[in-house]
């Protein structure tokens, strides 16, 4: 990696060119063609088979269930006989009216910014890697590849934090069951939202970051 930084565009020898394959689970290096890792027993692949297909499938599933998650109510609050329904955005806006801007920001970031950002980032990475010759044609420096790798790491790390909102709903509806005064019940959006988070996590997990570095041979 450091060699890539110091002399830009210089060809580095990849494991694949050297006839080697690294285990994605424990990192041990084997000669090409070994079916299973001798250390941890995971199946060995030079590149994950069908990685991009899986990424697209999980990503679209995630986007599809994200739509009802925003339309249907997340929380049903019953207070003295009157029921109010709160969607994800509604909950954040209401928190802001109460004056707790910090918490409103956390909810907004976790349940709107992160999921949408993740859709865009995963889609961008998959597109760039897939049409390496066309979209990646503008790629001139090794740093671009580093930036993509960093983007992938951020997406992989941050994805699970979207679940905050689902947990908030779970605690609220377990805690606030005061018969007449106030009751909070979960809405159907909680299910589709957690599905959306799970699907996009799977999309990030099935992306093979080694595909990013395959574009290196296109460097001019």
């Amino acid at each position: 990696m450091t060699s890539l930084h110091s002399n830009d565009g210089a060809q580095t020898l990849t494991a694949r060119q050297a006839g080697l394959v690294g285990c994605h689970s424990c990192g041990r290096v084997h000669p090409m063609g070994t079916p299973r890792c001798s250390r941890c027993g995971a199946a060995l692949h030079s590149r994950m088979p069908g990685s991009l297909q899986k990424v697209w499938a999980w990503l679209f599933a995630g986007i599809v269930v994200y739509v009802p998650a925003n339309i249907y109510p997340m929380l049903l609050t019953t207070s003295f006989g009157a029921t109010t329904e709160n969607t994800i955005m509604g909950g954040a806006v209401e928190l802001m009216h109460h004056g707790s801007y910090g918490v409103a920001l956390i909810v907004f970031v976790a349940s709107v910014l992160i999921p949408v950002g993740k859709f865009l980032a995963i889609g961008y990475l998959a597109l760039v890697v897939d049409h390496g010759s066309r979209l990646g044609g503008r790629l001139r420096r090794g740093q671009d590849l580093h930036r993509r790798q960093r983007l992938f790491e951020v997406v992989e790390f941050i994805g699970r934090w979207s679940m905050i909102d689902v947990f908030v709903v779970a605690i609220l509806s377990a805690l606030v069951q005061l018969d007449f005064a106030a009751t909070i019940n979960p809405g159907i959006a909680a299910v589709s939202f957690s599905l959306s988070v799970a699907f996009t996590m799977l999309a990030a997990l099935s992306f093979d970051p080694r595909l990013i570095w395959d574009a290196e041979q296109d460097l001019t």
Partner: protein
Amino acid sequence: MTRIVMLAATALVLMVAAVFFPFLELSAGGMVRQSSLLDAVLAFSSGLLLPLTFAVAALIIVLPVLRLASILYALAPMALGWHSARHGVAAFRLAEALRPWAMAEIFIVGVAVALVKVAGLARLGIGPAFWTFAALVLVTVLNDTYMCRLTVWKTLEERRRP
């Protein structure tokens, strides 16, 4: 190695306490409502939301426990200076695969947000399970920072049964 094993064992003990002690207590207008971690899990157990119960239970209780248990199983024999356990390699691989899905630390942030939302509505009491769960999260994070995956894999390979 010993430190990781000890931290994992601590986290497991804390988890048992966190599940069964009362978590939070809400009182308004003379009514008191106590809820444990299990109640939070069972909050979705009506009608269409039922699958979410299993998901939440898995994410905040089952998977963290499974992960800690498999780390213990893989590393404890080696910390005592023995050969690695029979399926220790598979157990550690499982622990690594579960890492993104064990969401205890995300749950605690969710609790904080929920507390702010409820604070205006009623008086809140924080039960012993809240503190044990917070400690559990801290211990788990420490565990993950101390554990070097490459070293563990190397040691697992060296101490293999002949």
